[in-house]
């Protein structure tokens, strides 16, 4: 079949769109792979599930009485617990408004030996939204305690 100008132009367009699509897909997949954060609970981390992730999110409850502040810097250490595990966490910076004992938190960071070094700490709905996923993850930990978080707390966020 001879290539008339129209057909040739169409072919060019189709090929360039195809090339752009491939580039876009590769970039998206790469960006997704590098920025996917898994949410794990302390017991999952202790059973070795965190080994394959460099950074991940640790979700659980702040153990009562475990919050310790450094006296001369903004360094804070506390313990995050779920039903079957506990994980010491270290964080330097300002904690969210709602951070306190027995509060559900999600910390983003990485493991350093047996300690979790957090770069960001979120407490429930102090940001524009608070993952409900944590509630699922914490379901066991709260088995005997009623989760005080109201089901509409998140809905109120526009």
């Amino acid at each position: 079949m001879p290539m008339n100008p129209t057909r040739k132009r169409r072919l060019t367009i189709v090929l360039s769109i195809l090339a752009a699509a491939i580039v876009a897909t590769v970039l998206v997949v790469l960006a997704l792979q590098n920025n996917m954060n898994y949410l794990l609970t302390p017991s999952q981390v202790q059973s070795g599930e965190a080994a394959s992730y460099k950074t991940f999110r640790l979700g659980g409850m702040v153990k009562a009485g475990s919050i310790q502040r450094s006296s001369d810097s903004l360094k804070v250490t506390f313990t995050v617990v779920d039903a079957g595990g506990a994980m010491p966490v270290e964080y330097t910076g300002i904690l969210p408004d709602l951070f306190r004992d027995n509060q559900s938190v999600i910390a983003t960071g990485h493991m350093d030996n047996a300690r979790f070094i957090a770069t960001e700490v979120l407490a429930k709905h102090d940001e524009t939204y608070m993952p409900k996923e944590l509630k699922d993850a914490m379901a066991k930990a709260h088995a005997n305690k009623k989760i005080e978080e109201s089901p509409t707390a998140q809905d109120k966020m526009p």
Partner: protein
Amino acid sequence: MTPELGQLALILALLLALAQGVLPLIGAWRGNRALMAVARPAAAGQAVFVAMAFAILVWAFLHFDFSVQYVADNSNLELPWYYRIAAVWGAHEGSLLLWILILNVWTVALAAFSQKLPEVFASRVLAVMGLIAVGFLAFIIFTSNPFGRLLPMPGDGADLNPVLQDPGMTFHPPVLYTGYVGFSVAFAFAIAGLLGGELEQAWVRWARPWTNVAWAFLTLGIVAGSWWAYAELGWGGWWFWDPVENASFMPWLVGLGLIHAQAITEKRGSLRAWTILLSIFAFSLSLLGTFLVRSGVLTSVHAFASDPRRGVFILAFLTIVVGGSLLLYALRAPKVAGGKAFKLVSRETVLLIGNLMFAVAAAMVLLGTLFPLIGDALNLGRISVGPPYFGFLFPLLMLPVVLLMPFGPFLRWGKGEPAVLKSLLLRVSIAAAACAIVAAFFVDGQPKAIVGVAAATWIAIGVLLYVYKRWREVPRGRRYPAEMAGMLLAHMGLAVFVVGVLLSESLSVTSDVRMAPGQTQHIGSYDFRFDGAHRTTGPNWRADQGTVTVTRDRKPVTVMHPQKRTYLRGQVQTESAVDAGIFRDLYVALGEPMDAGNIEGAWSLRLYYKPFIRWIWGGGVLMMLGGFTCAADKRFRIKRAAAIADDVLVQEARA
């Protein structure tokens, strides 16, 4: 008694919406004028009843009617009256009621301004609006009734979420919704155009001002939300790529594409199918956004479990709207194809590339936002997609848009002249390079800041050169029609926005510090002195209020009062203090007392110096003004149906 009247009003509104949605469609199909004439009165009646329901809910809030569950959940005796009104849209049920009220405002406006449209077309458009209203009213009445009773009536209510107790929040949701809902008009036009087939080609012209206005409102809503997050959340950030923000950003991006696609379709007749597709997607994403944010499904499909009926209803509604309109599109789109051909070097090509980039960016945001849901459904574990995903891909996708932007206006429709391109390229490149080199000395060689200055110059010089070209070549009075002035304003807005984003991101100085009273911290070229904290109270909160005195070269600049508020129900909320300026913001937020019992002692403080951050919102406001200006163009005023055909010919001859 009155809350029941509210519910009754909603049911009557639903019946009228049914009449408005079904009868005119049958009338348009059968050529029955009596049935078509139902559309306007039904729309007006529906609006009256919805307004009545809304007023009753407002009244219940103002009069502390805690026997209404929704009122008891979202307000209490100490809440000031203005926040009690804002509490109407503070949660799921009331915000849906606001949505439907705004839909009715748009419908009534449409009914009023469509008198001169062909009768069949206008009744189809109004019918589509009616069908959307049916969906929302049914959703409210059957799953999310704001008038549900709470008996026995409690003595006092709960509190409105404290993050919403801010002037910005009273204003942000209605404006954002006006934008969201506004895309329903473009959607209704597109569906009516599809139904009408080849007969109605002019609908894109009629739809354009509506789309521009909707997009401008959405822009304003997003800007207000971003400003609120900055001032209220205490982090000093203006955009977090979180699902709630993404939900409003996706329709904005598609709407932006739609505005440009409509311009092509109206002026050249080409890309019809694409314009229709974008109209469908802009509205579908608005719906998705409304539901995602309000239903809480964003982070887990399991959230449906809390009220499965809502989830099922939402899925069904979205499926009908998206599926139904795409089916109609598949059946009718080939009929509306056509238009004038264009060469590779032409305004169409540039606009088309921009359009593709906006669409791909919206898809990218959609993927990142819904990925946790996909992961959940596929049992991949609990995944979230971090902001760097968006932060990496979005600027990459917008790069071609910024690069091509100066050339769009200079190129002719159909076939542009490469010579014009070359001289323009030379000029903007020289200007951008020169400004970048000058800027490099001021910003300590920060690459991001230099890129920001270069990109902004690139866009701004392009706009200014075009302004100059029109000034020189076109006689006075016809130089800048509103449509063009709006385009230039919005493009200038992008330049301002780029300055704001890149300069504030690269030059900001942030410091989380521990400060004892009397201690001074040096940030940027400013000295922040912490003068201690004390207790203070407001209408429904008490707060620890810090005092921070800022000086520069020993000259006083300002005294700032950041607060840490505790609301009645124990919710804690940071109120940061901002000293605003055109070229820099100073921002102070209280962290926490280092010794929990002693607020007079040392505190952790967050201190920011943020240059040019205000330009981000300034750019957004310019874009919004551009949208409104564009919509005001005289060309869009509808003439009598018969005159339109001639006018289209004249227009095409001119273009």
